[in-house]
């Protein structure tokens, strides 16, 4: 089976004046379809950089990123937009709902870009909202919802087009622990229904929701393994040194 996400020595460099910032430094990893992976690390460790590359919002400076076997680096902007629409569902920390659209319309946006008819869109958006238990909020505006509800709308939006990969960048960052658990539960359900879920977080207690953890430190992978292994959540120099195996 081909990996759905495959990084071959991916680096992302930013030139800031005289210094070269290595936001991602020679990262190699394989994620299989249907996996639930958490990418963890401290602030500035390169999590969002990885997420942007996985999400086809950005391309590596060096190295190759294969999405479902296809080299993303060779695609043009339109093709990238199409892949984002078809293959990827984004869940952001700040929800990123469109404030002038209703809940239902927000969920319909990716379906609209996919070229679905109005009726199909409505149908799929309603199904997605049902799954996150927001069927009673269809015509509400985002600012009329609680943070947890808004995040559920954004989950509905991410899954409405039935993409292979769900990418969640700190999805619980703005939520209390109870609501966070609901959201993480939804992500687990998504995995069960066959999606590949990539969860990005700085919080170990949230990362353990995933089956597998990839830990980043200064743009490098320092741990890649099961989440229930003791070294997965412990951050120490010794483990860092011992954990650079992949």
């Amino acid at each position, binding site marked *: 089976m081909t990996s759905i996400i495959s990084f071959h020595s991916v680096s992302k460099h930013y030139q800031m004046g005289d210094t070269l910032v290595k936001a991602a430094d020679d990262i190699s990893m394989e994620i299989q379809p249907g996996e639930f992976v958490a990418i963890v690390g401290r602030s500035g460790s390169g999590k969002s950089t990885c997420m*942007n590359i996985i*999400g086809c*919002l*950005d391309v590596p400076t060096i190295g190759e990123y294969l999405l479902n076997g296809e080299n993303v680096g060779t695609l043009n*902007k*339109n093709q990238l*937009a*199409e892949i*984002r*629409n*078809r293959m990827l569902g*984004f869940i*952001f920390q700040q929800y*990123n709902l*469109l404030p*002038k659209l209703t809940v239902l319309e927000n969920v319909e*946006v*990716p379906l*609209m*870009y*996919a*070229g679905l008819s109005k009726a199909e869109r409505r149908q799929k958006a309603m199904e997605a909202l049902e799954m996150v238990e927001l069927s009673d909020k269809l015509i509400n505006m985002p600012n009329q919802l609680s943070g947890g509800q808004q995040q559920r709308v954004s989950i509905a*939006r991410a899954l409405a087009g039935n993409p292979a990969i769900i990418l969640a960048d700190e999805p619980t960052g703005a939520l209390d622990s109870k609501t966070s658990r609901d959201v993480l539960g939804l992500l687990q359900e998504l995995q069960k229904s066959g999606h590949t879920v990539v969860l990005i977080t700085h919080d170990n207690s949230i990362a353990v929701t995933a089956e597998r953890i990839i830990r980043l430190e200064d743009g490098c992978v320092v741990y890649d393994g099961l989440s229930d292994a003791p070294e997965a959540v412990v951050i120490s120099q010794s483990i860092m040194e011992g954990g650079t195996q992949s």
Partner: protein
Amino acid sequence: MKIGESIHQALKNIVSSKMRAFLTMLGIIIGIAAVMVIVGFGNGMENYMKDQFESMGTNTLTVTINGRGSSRSVSEDDMYQIVEDNSEYLDKISPTVSVSSTVKIDTETLDSTSVTGVNEEYFSIKDYGISDGRALQYLDMVNRQRVCVVGAYIAQEYYADDAVGQKIRIGGNKFTIIGVLNQQVDEMEEGSTDDMILLPYTTAARVLSAGTISNYTIMLTSEDFETDGKAAIEDALYSIFESEDAYRITSMSEMLEMMTSMTNIIIAIMTAIAGISLLVGGIGIMNIMLVSVTERTREIGIRKALGAKERFIMTQFVIESAVISAMGGLIGIAAGYGISAIATQVVGAVLDVSMTIVPSAASVVIAFGISVAIGILFGYLPAKKASRLNPIDALRYE
């Protein structure tokens, strides 16, 4: 993604900030309304002039003799002969002698009254009817009678409609009023066609020393013979003067054409000036669209993350700009109609001219087209900017 949905979204955005949208449209509204009114004014003017010329008779020619470049001269009898010789085309002729002497009734001076010496045919050439007394007759010409026919305005204003038999002083000479003309225009006024005195051209030429008889009004047998009639007179006059500079023959339709082309030039200049407002309006739209792109950077980032292609973002902004501009255009068209209607009333009341200022259907279509085009044109740059935004930067934008 269909155009209809983009328009729907654009309308939504516009409705969510009505005041701003309206202010943005203002330049377009003013520009379009101004163009509409000016074009309407031009149409009204053209129609008005057409009416005026038609009421003066499109079947007449005016001949002016100045004798330039020739030692010969032409008498009124020669002119009569020319008309007679070409009776196929030319029907009647009357000399017209403008008199500039002062007109007095008792001690009152009539400044705006036009005084013209004419012959007995003039009344049928101009289709002037007599409401009281009689018209000028051949004998009045022969005898250089000091008689005159006055317009309805004078009869009403100075003689309480009892003018016949009364005296009027023209250039110090006493004239007897022998007839009153029918009312010519709806609203009689000083200086209007009804404020007029007609007297025998012989009297005008000799007694009032209005100079030689050099102007003639000739009636054609039919409007269709304008060219033929004109050519016939030209031939005859040329054979006498042997110079083309010695006379000038003008037809009413030629004069109308001249006047129309003159007003058209004025209208074109005014329209161009009003067009500047459209340009300013377009720049205003571009400005607000650039602001809007900045404000909606995050939205653009989200849409791109969700799979919007550059083309879509581009279309969305261009359509929004076109919709704003088109709405401005529609409001401008409505305003243009409103202002035209008011202007018609005002012109009627102030200038006492019944001129209808109405924008043409073509100008409505063109105005709408122009406003949409401005929206697209000036929305293009901001839209391009929006579509080129890097999704990551856009998502990070606060």
